[in-house]
């Protein structure tokens, strides 16, 4: 299982783009009003910074994954603790995304089947791709889906240009102020911060020296796309309406009408979004299985698929409803995962790792 630089690029791009566009724009609009694009810009820069730190940290031990090198750096117990922090994040988020995915798909796409049916079909795909392809298969899928997502976003922007109202962006900065912009920044940042998965992914690369460039570009392009889409939503719907909507981007898409012939294409947008969610889920699924296998020293990590899959199915069933998803995102993700998993631990590992390396150099 080997990943190339391009695969990292597309993985990072597809991994991030879909869910940020779907989930974050409403809440950010609530906080930052018409200045949400500033929030997104700040989040983009910080997100790129996070992925840079994470990749840099992973490059300290390019042959070892996070699970291995955290124990190398911090010792057995502290290292295991750190790995457990990440495993909590990964395991909890899969059930959450899975549930959010089925709820959203049912709302927009097809109202008849029960959520568990959708969860199950998606789980089948996850098992299939992780079992047959592993991380390589996921990377290659993202190479196919990534361009489709980019083309769709371009289409979305181009087709909604005629609905733009530039008054919506005014006045800049006066209504919100720094605190609310910063508050708005946190949510997308917490999503961009998921790119700390690079801590694990670098160990799969055949040319680790390309890791930083590819990952940073992936996040940068993703952030750019998200900024454009957020601006697009703002220009079409205005801050008041979109703050009240749960998934404003898809309402923008449903605004699109070409010559009264192409209409209601939010359904197509959902299909494209599913591609991105699939990549996100399968990457987390793989990391959860692989990470847990490494933690418990299980040689054949594929065995864990059969334990993880039912677990995630149950988890997805247990999530009460999709407003809970928003709660999870706004609290756990922003107050726990962002400071600890995405910023704290990578910085800590980087500091200790660099110090050790320097110390080792000085010694010799």
């Amino acid at each position: 299982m080997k990943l190339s630089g391009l695969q990292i690029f597309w993985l990072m791009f597809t991994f991030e783009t879909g869910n940020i566009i779907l989930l974050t724009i409403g809440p950010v609009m609530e906080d930052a009003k018409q200045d949400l694009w500033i929030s997104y810009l700040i989040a983009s820069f910080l997100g790129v910074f996070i992925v840079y730190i994470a990749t840099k940290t992973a490059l300290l031990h390019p042959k070892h994954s996070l699970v291995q090198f955290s124990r190398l750096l911090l010792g057995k117990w502290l290292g295991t603790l750190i790995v457990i922090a990440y495993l909590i994040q990964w395991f909890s988020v899969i059930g959450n995304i899975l549930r959010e995915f089925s709820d959203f798909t049912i709302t927009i796409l097809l109202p008849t089947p029960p959520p568990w049916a959708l969860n199950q079909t998606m789980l089948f795909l996850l098992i299939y791709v992780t079992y047959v392809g592993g991380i390589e298969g996921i990377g290659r899928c993202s190479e196919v889906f990534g361009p489709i997502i980019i083309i769709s976003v371009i289409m979305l922007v181009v087709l909604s240009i005629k609905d733009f109202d530039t008054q919506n962006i005014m006045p800049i900065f006066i209504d919100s102020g720094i605190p609310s912009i910063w508050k708005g920044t946190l949510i997308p940042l917490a999503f961009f911060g998921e790119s700390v998965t690079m801590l694990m992914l670098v160990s799969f690369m055949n040319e680790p020296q390309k890791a930083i460039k590819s990952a940073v570009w992936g996040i940068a392009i993703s952030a750019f796309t998200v900024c454009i889409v957020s601006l697009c939503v703002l220009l079409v719907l205005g801050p008041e309406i979109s703050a009240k909507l749960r998934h404003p981007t898809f309402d923008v898409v449903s605004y699109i009408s070409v010559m009264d012939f192409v209409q209601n294409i939010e359904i197509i947008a959902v299909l494209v979004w599913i591609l991105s969610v699939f990549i996100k889920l399968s990457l987390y699924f793989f990391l959860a299985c692989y990470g847990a296998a490494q933690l418990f020293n299980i040689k054949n990590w594929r065995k864990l698929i059969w334990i993880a899959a039912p677990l995630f199915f149950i988890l997805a069933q247990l999530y009460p409803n999709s407003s809970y998803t928003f709660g999870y995102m706004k609290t756990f993700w922003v107050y726990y995962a962002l400071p600890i998993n995405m910023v704290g631990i990578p910085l800590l590992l980087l500091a200790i790792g660099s110090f050790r390396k320097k110390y080792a150099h000085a010694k010799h």
Partner: protein
Amino acid sequence: MMIRLRKKKHFDGNKITPYPSTIKNEPLHSELTANEQIIKDLFQNCADLVTHPIYEAGKPKLLLIYLDGLTDTKTLEQGLLRPLLYEGFPHGLNKVHSLQQIIEQQLFAVTPIKNISTIDELVDGILMGNAGIIFEGEIKGIVADFNGMPLRSIEEPATEITIRGPRDGFTESIRTNSSLLRRRIRSSRLKFEALTVGELSQTSVEITYIEGIASESLLEEVRGRLSRIEIDGVLESEYIEEFIEDSSFTPFPQIQNTERPDIVIANLLEGKVAIMVDNTPFVLIVPMTFWNGLQSVEDYYERFLYTSFIRLVRYILFNMTMYLPSVYVALTTYHPKLIPTTLLISIAAAREGVPFPAIVEALIMEFVFEGLREAGIRLPKAVGSAVSIVGALVIGQAAVQAGIVSAPMVIVVATTGIASFAIPRYNLGTALRLIRFPMLLLAGIFGLYGIVIGFIALTIHLVTLRSFGVPYFTPVAPQIPVDLKDVFFRVPRWANTAGPIFTFGRNKQRIPKGQKPGPQKGGTKQ
């Protein structure tokens, strides 16, 4: 212990060999009659065996053995029999010569010969269509190539038709086929490595490649996989294909086959390896990628702008082959919102009297269409046109009028059928046609969501397939940006300076850069 007990023993019992094991490596006898008897025993009940003694002074001096029909008797008569019978046994240039040497010299001008000393070699030679000659009092014999197997003349291949391009196609004879290739590459670097496959059929198989372009690791892989085959007979290259392909449980062909020498050469020049099998005009080419199946040789014989456009059309058509019926079912059943209102009204009006749900209707029609196609191929040419007439009447007109299927469904199925025939590689087209059915079912259950699920599953399947170590979906996934130019477009030849990286390697260049024609370079200055 249980596992060890259950483990299968290597089967080596009653293995079929071309001739009984009793004559294994038995040397030729010095007596002619003894040899003749052995041969006659071996070829018991073989009416096509001819043994022809030639006498000198009332005694059989030499025995001619061949299989009637495989040997060119006319040349045999002119080159050997006539001189022997009319001029008598020649005498050597010098005094003492064995009869064998004399005959050898006699035949030297006529045909290649081979010295033999065992019964095996003699039998092998006879079975190849050669004439065996053994002599009284000598333990050596000759196998002379008077091969006259019936041959088909070189014709235009029926399965791959182009407007512009060479009209010659492979025949059933492997020698003719190799000569067609040799004509195109006049270099000793074009190699044909011979081996035989098939215990009984002893079919000659040749690994063809251009030395220095095909990678050694690929060649090793091909040799290894071919040498592992144990089979009684090989009738078609498909027999070989199923033994050496990477994954059997997939509808997608992982080995390209072609009847056209120019396609083989084009692929050899890209560093691939061809496998020629005797008795079939279909040559195998490895490795194959998914995109090879969508490229036609004519793409490279027409102007690049036009063929780039045609490629685009082909990609749309291949997506239609897989998704069009299922999208129609999904839209009409689950998402009528997506259909423009006026179109929706006319579809609804057309579907009014139809008793089946769209999915059932689609399955029926697809099934009927596949049946028509199969019947059209299998029927003798004389009645073949009847099928299309009946089919057109049945599914085109009568079924719609009777209210059993709706007219839009007929349009959808017919379009899908046409789209599937537009795919240049027939076996890839069949794969896509096969995938249509699970897609239909998914669309019937989950609507567009089901199609996306199917699309993702298909993508996973395609990106994890391999063909001789090359990922099937190269250069799209794993992505090789420089190779994409020959996938989504057909760039002009002067721009395609590098061969495909997956077979060619990163450091090799195909043609030098900077050959873009222009008034300064190409024409005379004014």
